[in-house]
Every structure is written in C-alpha cells, then in structure tokens.
C-alpha cells in the first residue's frame, strides 16, 4: 500500500515538472517553432506520467485501458497538430515574404 502511494506521488510530481517545463518553454522561447517543440514534447510526457499515476491509483482494468487509449490518442493528435501548425506557419511566412518582394 505504502509503496504504491510513493510511486503515485513520484509519477504525479514528474508529470507536474514536465508540464511546468512545457509552459515555461511556451513563455520563454523566442519563436513559434521552438515553442512548438517545447510544448508538444514536454506536455505529452507530463500527461503520460500523470496518466500512469492515476491508472495506478484507480487500479481498475477497464479504466487503465481507457487511460492508455487516451494517452495514445494524445500522442497521435499532438504530433500531427504540431506538424500541421509548423507547416501552416512556414507557409504564412513564405507568402508574406513573397508579397513584400
């Protein structure tokens, strides 16, 4: 019982740390591409840690399957959306530069 709780605490604290890292990256980095990199990487890891901790806490097989499914979907959608946003921004900047020239 004790060991399980210690694991949960460690996992949740690690998740919070990665969330803080992602947010700080979002605030402090100079341009969109580095922000994108910081946020999408760190936040997914943070969410993964928190999901693992909560799955351990709830300890029901159905909920664990659901939480795992949530995490996989988040990885998929976050990776795709970071790529899409980056490409969108590059096209915007290109067309803006093209208009100026």
């Amino acid at each position, binding site marked *: 019982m004790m060991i399980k709780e210690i694991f949960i605490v460690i996992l949740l604290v690690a998740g919070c740390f990665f969330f803080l890292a992602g947010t700080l990256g979002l605030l402090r980095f100079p341009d969109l591409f580095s922000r994108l990199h910081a946020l999408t990487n760190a936040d997914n890891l943070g969410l993964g840690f*928190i999901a693992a901790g909560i799955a351990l806490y*709830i300890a029901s097989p159905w909920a664990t399957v659901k939480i795992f*499914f949530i995490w996989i979907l988040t990885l998929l959608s976050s990776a795709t959306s970071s790529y899409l946003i980056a490409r969108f921004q590059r096209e915007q900047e290109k067309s803006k530069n093209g208009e100026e020239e």
Partner: protein
Amino acid sequence: MLTLKHFLSGSVYDNIALRLVVASFLVKNVFSMDAFFIIVIIFLLLNIGLGLIRLWRGPSIADRLLTTQLFGTAGMAILMVMAGYLNDLTLLNVVITFNVLSIILVICLVQVWKKKKGEAP
C-alpha cells in the same frame, strides 16, 4: 531524551533508524492522498494561468492556437487527477471528448485559413 531543539538542528537525522521513524510519522499523519491531488490540480490550473500570458502576447494566430493545445493537455491532466480525487470514472469520458476534439481546431485553422490574406483583426 529528544527535544524540539534536536529536530531543528538536524542532529537527529544522522541516525538512519530515527530518520525512517520521522518519515513514516510524517507520511502517516501529515500527508494524505487527497491533499496531494488538490495540490497537483492547483499546480496545473496555475500552469494554465501562465499559458494565458502567451495567449495574450502571441504575435501570430498559430501561437494562440498553440496555447489552446496547452490548455487541452493540461485540462485533460486536471480531469484525470479529478477522476482519481473524486473516484468518478465517468470523468474519463470527458477526457476522451476533449481528446478526440482537440485536433479539429488545428485542422480547421490549417485548411480554412489557407487563402487568408489579411492580418488577424
């Protein structure tokens, strides 16, 4: 005999056995899982509050969209911790709803704003 002075000066903690006793006392009587969950939830909420700064400043529309990604992920984390805290498994359905719909905004921006010419108002 141990007094408060020994605890404060730290000399007690040299003894490993005593250290374990103190740690287990703290864990058993001061620490509780619910309080820890509340601290995590508040931390994540403050994270969202920090993200608002980028939303306000963000020079381009893509920056702003990025903050909504942060809100989505942090919101999902908060909901999961709440599911543990309230012991309510139906909250996981709310998480999945956020999850499957978070990408639709990005795809909408990318596809609909393709032919955009002006700056964001």
